[in-house]
């Protein structure tokens, strides 16, 4: 499946259609700016314009896929939790299709709710927090290709980003700033503690995560998702770098803030963590984006360690990719619903004292494998 060609085809067809319209208008009303219509039609049909519109359409497609995936993820989360906990999860809503519409109902309800800005909050920060959080997560998402020809940042038009994996991690790491800003500007002690915890946690887990990712870069010899995935054609990196994969999963859990490491929104001690003061759709964005980050995490693990879209050719590449991402997500959810939460000093202890040396060891293993010429 080639996303670029698909979108290019659609845009080309649309532009042609519009061109015909303009020319027809120019022919029908020649006395009224006839030349102008013709000129506009020519301009719209230029190659550069078509490429730009194609990329916009690609972004839209990826966005829709992401949103559908996020809805699926929330649903899987609830249903899987229900199966673990001996109950059904959402069930009666909508047309009784297993409660899949529950997330949509939640979203629409949050859209209808009143949005409250606390009187003593720092307005600019309070507004900016969700915006940065959501937009940085979507930017990270945009760099990940779902198939050999199914991505935005790596398309054959020549407009792709060369170091897309690096870009993904750069965008992925912006979130703690957004959390810190929104936690501080809410003017609430719980949100402040939550924001501080989040900053400490994410920054300390960023380093072992990037070290393990560096070992993948070393083996693949590239910063680009396309090259990394195609380097895993023979063997997935999760097998030689098994240690690194485990470290990556642990860091991922900390980065997307779910259960054993969900200190910033630890429900029992900090009421709802840094989202305490947010209401209505702003909270909805936070909730959706936290699952979106779970999706991104699964996609990153898939692309870097689980061979991306490689699989038997019966199923199309993007579907393979999504299946793997879903499996990673379910494993993370499994951890989430069965473990207690760690404490903040223990968390930092694990990060710096355990994961850092192990990540270094993993990098050493990767480097020696590269030196031996196995990859």
């Amino acid at each position, binding site marked *: 499946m080639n996303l670029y060609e698909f979108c290019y085809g659609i845009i080309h067809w649309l532009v042609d259609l519009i061109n015909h319209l303009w020319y027809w208008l120019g022919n029908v009303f020649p006395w009224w700016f006839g030349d102008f219509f013709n000129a506009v039609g020519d301009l719209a049909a230029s190659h550069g314009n078509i490429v730009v519109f194609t990329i916009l359409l690609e972004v839209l497609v990826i966005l829709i896929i992401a949103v559908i995936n996020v809805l699926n993820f929330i649903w899987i989360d*609830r249903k899987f939790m*229900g199966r673990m*906990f*001996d*109950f*059904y*999860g*959402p*069930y*009666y*809503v*909508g047309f009784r299709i297993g*409660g899949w*519409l*529950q997330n*949509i*109902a*939640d*979203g*629409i*309800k949050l859209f*209808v*709710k*009143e*949005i*409250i800005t606390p009187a003593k909050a720092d307005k600019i920060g309070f507004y900016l927090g969700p915006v940065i959080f959501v937009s940085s997560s979507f930017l990270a998402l945009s760099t990940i290709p779902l198939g050999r020809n199914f991505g935005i940042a790596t398309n054959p038009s020549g407009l792709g980003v060369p170091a897309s994996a690096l870009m993904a991690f750069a965008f992925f790491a912006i979130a703690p700033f957004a959390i810190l800003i929104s936690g501080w500007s809410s003017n609430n002690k719980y949100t402040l503690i939550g924001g501080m915890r989040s900053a400490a946690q994410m920054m300390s887990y960023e380093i072992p995560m990037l070290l393990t990712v560096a070992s993948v870069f070393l083996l693949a010899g590239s910063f680009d998702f396309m090259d990394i995935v195609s380097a895993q054609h023979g063997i997935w990196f999760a097998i030689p770098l098994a240690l690194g994969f485990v470290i990556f999963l642990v860091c991922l859990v900390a980065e997307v803030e779910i259960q054993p490491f969900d200190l910033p929104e630890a*429900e029992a001690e900090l*009421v*709802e963590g840094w*989202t*305490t*003061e*947010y*209401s*209505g759709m702003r*909270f909805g964005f936070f909730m959706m984006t936290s699952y979106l980050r779970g999706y991104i995490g699964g996609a990153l693990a898939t692309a870097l360690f689980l061979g991306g879209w490689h699989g038997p050719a019966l199923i199309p590449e993007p579907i393979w990719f999504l299946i793997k991402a879903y499996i990673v997500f379910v494993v993370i959810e499994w951890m989430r619903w069965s473990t207690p939460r760690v404490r903040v000093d223990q968390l930092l202890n694990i990060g710096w004292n355990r994961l850092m040396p192990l990540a270094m060891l993993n990098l050493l293993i990767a480097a020696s494998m590269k030196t031996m010429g196995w990859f």
Partner: protein
Amino acid sequence: MGNVIAFRSKDFIKWADGVLEGVLRRSPVGSGVDYLTKDFFNWATRNSIYPLHFGIMCCALEMAVASAPRFDAQRFGVIYRSTPRQCDVLLVNGPVSKKLKPALRRLYDQMPGPKWVIAMGECAISGGPFYNSYSVVPGVDQFIPVDIYIPGCPARPEALIDGFIKLQKMIKENKKGLLTGK
């Protein structure tokens, strides 16, 4: 006209909001939007009820049991949130003492609209066994508007779930669209 020119940008936005919304609400466009959206919004609102995680007395225990596997209120989309900012329903499940009264009122004020109140158990309805005590407010409806009353001392979990379904019915009867809902 002079007034319009002397507007600051904030005032202008406020004025435009008021005028545009007023016109929209009164015009057929407004009623059309309302007609199109009200069923959908109403469906969403009644199917996702987030009560506040707030336990007072015996009924709080039944509230916890109602979200446990046997009674499983999550089937109906009932999820407990801990902060009043993200809740729809204030579930008062016990006697309200005079020391608690200001705090409860504040919780109610912190919740974003549209919001509902369920009085669960005799204590919240009328003071229950403590109706003539010196420190218990006889009934939470003395200072908060209550929508659903669930009798019982303590109310059983089935009764609580029935209360949620009654609340869904109540929301269904009172449909509001995009413009009238705000």
